[in-house]
């Protein structure tokens, strides 16, 4: 159970305490990247089954958005937002176990990947149906409003998901009731193979916010400092009762849509252009300019994150599969009681 302790300690520092020192943010992005790269490798090794959707390249968005959040806030990550779990301090071992379908995963083997959450950390799982998590986030925000709690609900979604009707219904209602919800669009220019031009006739998803009566912001999603600056001000306004907001982060995914996808539909040039805006390497430039000893920092951080990831893998691999009957549990919270009839 070492992995558990380790990553819980970890989480105490990064997300929950609200401390956002340069090095912690760096550590967080590196951890997400390392964890995801390991997941991809485990998938190639057939140790993780089913679909794996890497968020590599998009770490700055999750990191920047999660930093200003507080305990009690609620998050609904989508398929490419595994990082959100780590950033909220979810136990890395259990997360890995979840991906492997092991007993110690959040769903005890019932579902893969991100359809379960770690509710204690405010992270809820969604279904695969893209966009359908936005109404749920809006409902969480409604609860905060009704109960006068100063929390924020955050829904992540891709630009492709923004075409779904649920997104419209959710944003409209959020606007009408000025709910404390933040919509985070990770615009990585593709929905599977479909380029953005075939998905929408406008430039920015954020431009839709005004159609619902709230603010929309566009920001360079690979620039952690920019995301952070925006998310801090936007989240504090939402928390203050200013109503919903939408931030759209322009970004790119390095991998194919899933690990099965060679992504032949896009050009090498495009990939290279975006790799040159790598969020981690860009942030390293910042650390350097600021006077940090980058080689040392990098090495130390890499050791740390590799240790966390390795412990997570070890923990998950040692965790048993659930017993088959687990498939039938947790369907209902209130059991049927057939009392003898009077």
């Amino acid at each position: 159970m070492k992995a558990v302790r380790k990553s819980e300690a970890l989480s105490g520092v990064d997300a929950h305490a609200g401390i956002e020192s340069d090095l912690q943010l760096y550590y967080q992005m590196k951890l997400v990247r390392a964890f995801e790269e390991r997941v991809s490798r485990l998938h190639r090794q057939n140790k993780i089954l089913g679909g794996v959707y890497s968020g590599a390249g998009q770490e700055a968005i999750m990191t920047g958005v999660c930093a200003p959040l507080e305990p009690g806030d609620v998050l609904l990550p989508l398929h490419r937002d595994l990082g959100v779990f780590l950033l909220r301090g979810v136990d890395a071992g259990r997360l890995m176990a979840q991906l492997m379908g092991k007993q110690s995963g959040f769903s005890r083997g019932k579902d893969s990947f991100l359809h379960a959450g770690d509710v204690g950390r405010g992270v809820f799982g969604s279904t695969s149906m893209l966009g359908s998590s936005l109404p749920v986030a809006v409902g969480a925000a409604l609860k905060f409003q009704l109960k006068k709690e100063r929390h924020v609900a955050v829904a992540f979604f891709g630009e492709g998901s923004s075409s779904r009707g649920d997104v419209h219904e959710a944003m409209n209602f959020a606007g009408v009731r000025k709910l404390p919800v933040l919509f985070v669009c990770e615009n990585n220019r593709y929905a599977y193979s479909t380029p953005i031009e075939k998905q929408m006739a406008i430039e920015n998803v954020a431009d839709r916010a005004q159609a619902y009566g709230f603010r929309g912001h566009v920001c360079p999603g690979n620039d952690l400092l920019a995301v952070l600056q925006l998310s801090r001000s936007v989240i504090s306004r939402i928390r203050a009762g200013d109503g919903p907001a939408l931030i759209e982060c322009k970004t790119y995914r390095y991998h194919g849509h899933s690990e099965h996808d060679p992504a032949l539909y896009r050009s090498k040039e495009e990939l290279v252009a975006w790799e040159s805006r790598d969020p981690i390497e860009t942030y390293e430039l910042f650390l350097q300019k600021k006077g940090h000893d980058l080689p040392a920092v990098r090495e130390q951080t890499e050791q740390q994150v590799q240790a966390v990831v390795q412990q997570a893998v070890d923990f998950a691999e040692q965790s048993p599969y659930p017993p088959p009957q687990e498939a039938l549990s947790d369907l209902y919270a209130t059991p049927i009681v057939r009392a003898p009839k009077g």
Partner: protein
Amino acid sequence: MEVTYVRAINQALFEEMRRDENVFVMGEDVADLGGAFKVTEGLLEAFGPDRVIDTPIAESLIVGAGVGAAALGMRPVLEMQFADFISCAFDQIVNMAATMRYRHGGQVACPLVVRAPCGAGVHGALFHSQNPEAWFTRVPGLKVVAPATAYDAKGLLKSAIRDDDPVIYFEHKRLYRSIKEDLPEGDFLTPIGVAEVKREGRDISVITYGGTLHYSLDAARIADKEDGLSVEVLDLRTLLPLDREAIVATAKNTGKILVVHEDRLTGGIGGEVSAIIAEHAFEYLDGPVVRLAMADTHNPFSPPLEEFVLPDTNKILAAIRRLAAY
């Protein structure tokens, strides 16, 4: 005091909202208007706009937001203006709400109720007459109820609101003001998952629920009086999970089964009931398991067409007689 079916539902909402401040009502026109059928009448005045919430026309949002609120401990009672429009919230119900607890490995509950005014016989035609229950009774994680009496309308809604799982509650529009009963004073519940023998008998069982219970009871009385047949009538009340014990018990008791519902024949719940009997009470059967239901078509508008496709007392009586003669 005599209470109508619609008033019984309204009472349940009042009582549960008073009992638990986490209960709130949300839907189209539920506040000022008190709902298209006046089911939520008076709630806005009593509980204020934070607990009786009008929404835009957005069924998927209504249910999805209900899931979000329920996951954080609220108990939303969500109204579909007509059960027919539940199709617009389908994905949120069958995929989001129904799986919430399961995929979170039991970490979270999803205590919401979707109220759906259903049923034909009121000239509603294709899109204001549907009985969509069987779309939901095949979805684990949901519970589905369909009260046929004012007592059960109140008792099942109260149970549904207190239940920690998502419950789809089908209330039959034709019953709203056409039936009345004396209800007991004070708090009472109808348990979810438990069918009830509304009339005991020895010769034939009619298994039914919702809109066709009263026709079935009428037919049973006539068959008794005119043919001397002793007809048992089982009201399923809960459609998911089915009360298999009660179904098998009545089948063993009479050996002749007629399943009746207002939903269409093909794909209706009657098939499931019949299959349970054919598998688990086979040795006790004295005749085929017969189903009587709406014809396999859409709900037509024109009165002679609507009458033609829907089950009624006479059609049930005829089926009882045919089965008795088998």
